[in-house]
């Protein structure tokens, strides 16, 4: 068991001027499950591969425990990695796959057998030990890849989108299995995914990256409640947060017929560079249906209703007659607003609903920098 520290770690790919990972600073506690999440090309896999030793670190350091491993070969780092495509050795049986690292480490045959069988029991693979990977299903292969990591009893587990090749149902199932397995083993784990649901459900903490820059690190609750900038706000949460650029008028954020009150602290934090504008975000689940004329309420024209049984989501836009509809967007696309409504009382398509933001669940961001402003 060990901590992991990224100390200004930077990776610039040859032939590129822009760093893929730019001065990453991250401390991962002993036994912690940290999820690196971000859109594709954000440098999350590169960060993981730097920790694995599969990518060079151009500047900065990486530490495992107190040991500087920046220039250490992967084999000497005492880590185990689960790859996206599992990377099982096709010519070896499941048992040989799992025992390969031990065999290279020169462990005795009986010890290898014992540890492989133990891991196989944990992962429910005992009856498949003599099979070749090609005779296994996707889920079983995934478990073998996990088993290969467990058998090592390494300092750190590295997982690079290990669930992305599974079908949706199996993915949810395996997700919880991996999370509980990690809790049980207590091994420090760095997990890469592009799926924010996976990140929220599995991680002790989440680190969001964009364009090689760390945006925010925190517990799932912190990421959801207090996103530090517009990007994190839009990335975490499903369906995505509605974010609009509003004009500041008389201490209120105003866009078309939507007039949302702003606190004094928020207004004080607005700078000249913001040019009298502010970005306001509100989650679909932070909106309450209200009536016309009540404070802070604004009309939404219903385009589509998505019913999921437990929830229903209204996809609409800021009602017509307002010039500002194009300035608001959500996960559903430009000039769209998503509202969660009671699945038993869904509004008609084409109708107008009045919604208001629940107190304290509004997120304000600077129009110029995108940084979070106090509520």
């Amino acid at each position, binding site marked *: 068991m060990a901590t992991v520290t990224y100390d200004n770690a930077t990776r610039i790919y040859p032939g590129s001027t822009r760093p893929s990972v730019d001065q990453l600073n991250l401390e991962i506690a002993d036994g912690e499950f940290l999820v690196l999440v971000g859109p594709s090309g954000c440098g999350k896999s590169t960060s993981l591969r730097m920790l*694995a030793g*599969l990518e060079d670190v151009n500047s900065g350091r990486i530490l495992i425990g107190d040991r500087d491993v920046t220039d250490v070969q992967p084999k000497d780092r005492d880590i185990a*990695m689960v790859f996206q495509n599992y990377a099982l050795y096709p010519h070896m049986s499941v048992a040989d796959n799992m025992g390969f690292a031990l065999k290279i480490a020169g462990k005795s045959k009986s010890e290898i057998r014992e540890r492989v069988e133990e891991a196989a029991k944990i992962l429910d693979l005992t009856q498949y030990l003599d099979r070749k990977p090609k005779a296994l299903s996707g889920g079983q292969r995934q478990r073998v890849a996990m088993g290969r990591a467990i058998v090592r009893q390494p300092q750190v587990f590295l997982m690079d989108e290990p669930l992305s090749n599974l079908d949706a149902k199996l993915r949810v199932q395996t997700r919880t299995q991996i999370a509980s397995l990690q809790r049980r083993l207590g091994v420090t784990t760095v997990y890469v995914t592009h799926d924010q649901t996976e990140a929220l459900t599995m991680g002790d903490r989440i680190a969001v990256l964009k364009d090689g820059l760390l945006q925010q690190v925190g517990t799932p609750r912190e990421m959801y409640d207090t996103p530090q900038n517009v990007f994190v706000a839009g990335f975490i949460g499903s369906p995505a947060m509605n974010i609009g650029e509003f004009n500041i008028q008389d201490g209120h954020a105003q866009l078309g017929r939507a007039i949302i009150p702003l606190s004094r602290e928020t207004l004080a934090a607005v700078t000249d560079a913001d040019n009298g504008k502010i970005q306001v975000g509100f989650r679909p689940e932070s909106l309450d249906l209200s009536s016309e004329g009540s404070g802070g309420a604004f009309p939404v024209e219903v385009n589509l209703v998505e019913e999921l049984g437990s929830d229903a989501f209204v996809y609409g836009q800021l009602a017509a007659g307002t010039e500002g509809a194009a300035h608001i967007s959500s996960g559903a696309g430009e000039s769209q607003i998503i509202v969660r409504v009671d699945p038993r009382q869904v509004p008609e398509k084409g109708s107008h609903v009045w919604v208001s933001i629940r107190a304290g669940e509004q997120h304000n961001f600077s129009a110029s920098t995108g940084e979070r402003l106090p509520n």
Partner: protein
Amino acid sequence: MSYPAIESTTLVETADGGGDERRRGRLRRSKIAERSESAASRLSSPWASAVAILVAILWTIPSVGLLVTSFRPELDIRRSGWWTGLTGPFTVQNYETAWSGSGGLGPFFVNSFVITLPAVLIPITIALLAAYAFAWIDFKGRNFLFVAMFALQVVPLQVALVPLLKAYVDMGINGTFWSVWISHAMFGLPLAIFLLHNFMKDIPPALVEAARVDGAGHVKIFFQVLLPLLVPAIAAFGIFQFLWVWNDLLVGLTFTDTGSRPITVAIAELAGSRGGQWHLLTAGAFISMIVPLVVFFSLQRYFVRGLLAGSVKG
């Protein structure tokens, strides 16, 4: 593309109102069967088969003729064509004379083995190491070196004969087996490296990375992870090189002395120095043919698999 078609047929069936489960199931099954039939017929058109069989027969007739001739008595061979002797009489006299008569092929047959085996093993060994380096070790000038190496493939080996001969004489190994081994190895290397490199490149990089994380160095990655996966490629190139070296006349003729001649040179002399005795030539040709045939038929599935590997996913 054909899948929606099935769906729509089923739908129509249901809309007719007569679509009970059994009929629908049968309909779907028959559609699938139809599709597999059409695929099968496209792959095995009778005309294509007929042409293939015709070509096969045309190409085999000379060999059959040679085989029949080699078993006929000398006098018959001179008197009539092989097709008149299909019913006999047969004799193995030609083979006996060709194998162990004066200047018989026996020792040269052994020479051919002595030449061929190292001439196959040496380039494979070197090419495997080179291909690994080209595929998995990132060093400066790798791409340039690789292209330069493969560009050598376009140099006709005849160009190299005189300089090589001079070098061998200087080294004092001219006329020994060494000169033939080295020559064949050199001429075979560009293609060997190219083939094995391409094959290695097709192995997912994650596999090598997994091995690195698992604690394997280059040597262990090479022997325990890559080598088992490369068997088809090695077999394919091995067969290729074996047939090439075994059938080679030019290199064998240029670089060997009488004592180290391969069987091809000996057969050429059989025809040249005793021009009239071509009854022995037929038997000699078959003696030299038998080894490539055995090699090819016993290893052909590797050969085909090796040539296809990489072009097909999975």
